[in-house]
């Protein structure tokens, strides 16, 4: 009987926690999403504008082969695999123009495959 009571309490606790987490997630403001597509040898758009201190999700989608998305000045990078949307979370802490580039060698135009993030006040 005592054991049943413990199990019941545990289930109640798990349910409460799950509901709490769900509530917390629902309450979290959704980060704006910036979408980029990449193919040999072009990012689209080639330039994106972000606000200093504002968190965003950058989504990158490949239209052909495996690429990279590397934005070292803002400390983010990811592989971009065809068929999957790659996401990085970034909250720029400084203003300026910052280069992002493909860092997985993808062919003859690889070295020109880059773009710019402009961070404004």
């Amino acid at each position, binding site marked *: 009987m005592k054991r049943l009571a413990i199990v019941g309490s545990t289930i109640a606790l798990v349910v409460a926690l799950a509901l709490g987490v769900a509530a917390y997630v629902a309450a979290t403001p959704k980060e704006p999403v910036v979408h980029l597509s990449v193919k040999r040898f072009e990012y689209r758009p080639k330039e994106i504008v972000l606000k200093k201190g504002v968190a965003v999700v950058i989504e990158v989608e490949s239209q052909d082969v*495996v690429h*990279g998305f*590397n934005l*070292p*000045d803002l400390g983010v990078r990811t*592989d971009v695999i065809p068929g999957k949307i790659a996401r990085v979370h970034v909250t720029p802490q400084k203003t300026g123009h*910052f*280069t992002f*580039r493909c*860092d*997985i*060698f*993808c*062919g*003859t135009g*690889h*070295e020109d495959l*880059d773009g710019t993030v402009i961070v404004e006040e």
Partner: protein
Amino acid sequence: MARTINRRDFLKLAGLGGAVFASGLGYRTGAAARTYSAAQDFYFVQLSDSHWGFSGPEINPDADGTLRKAVAAVNALKERPDFIVFTGDLTHSTDDPVERRKRMREFREIVSGLKVKDLKFMPGEHDASLDHGKAFRELFGDTHYTFDHKGIHFIALDNVSDAAALIGDEQLAWLRSDLDRLDKEAPIVVFTHRPLFDLYPQWDWATRDGAKAIELLMPYRNVTVFYGHIHQEHRHMTGHIAHHAARSLIFPLPAPGSAPKRMPIPWDAAQPYKGLGFREVDAEVKSARYEVTEWPVQKA
């Protein structure tokens, strides 16, 4: 030094290139040092980034002739180097596997004119990243290897066959196993294509897991790295390890971060071949010091 280089003649010839003394490595004295002191001093030549197959008249109107001129310039050195190493980007990238092999064969044919017994080749990302080094291995052999020469242990590391600029865990384990055999005082020279350290990742001038290789090398007190990729002379220290980048044989690139884009520096008709060249490295084995002399492709 055992070899009798006429340094004055070298410097006269190298008037456009100049000589730079590569930093000493603080080689420790004592029993370990004496182990290597009997070794004979020598020199080798580093050539890099010839990008055979590149076309761009505004960048290099003599793209077909520059490598040949470098071969002639090396052959004109008064003494033969013990060996010559090419630190990658022998050819310019092409998506066509047939054309890739054609360029590699043409490159090999041209450099076969070098008057030296021993040629060492390494791939750059232009040679190897699109097929994981397959064509390179067919024509030039292994992409990473070691050899010993007159008391110095040489390690060629491949940081390009993985298109993501990774050395990879397997090769790092191989490196660890190779290093484990060595005395901590042993003179070691590492050849790579990309810099092992984060020189300027914004321009892809880095090796993503290069820090792991440096960590493995760090306990060894006499390590020097020679690499290519950035098409210019550059010197950097990670702790006591010196890293020396070489010039290209096709076009120079701007200093790291000095321009909005990593674009080739256009040809200067008033100073043809400016910024291009190769280097000789005089190894003083006893002290593990390397004197680096930069040579122009062609006298003005």
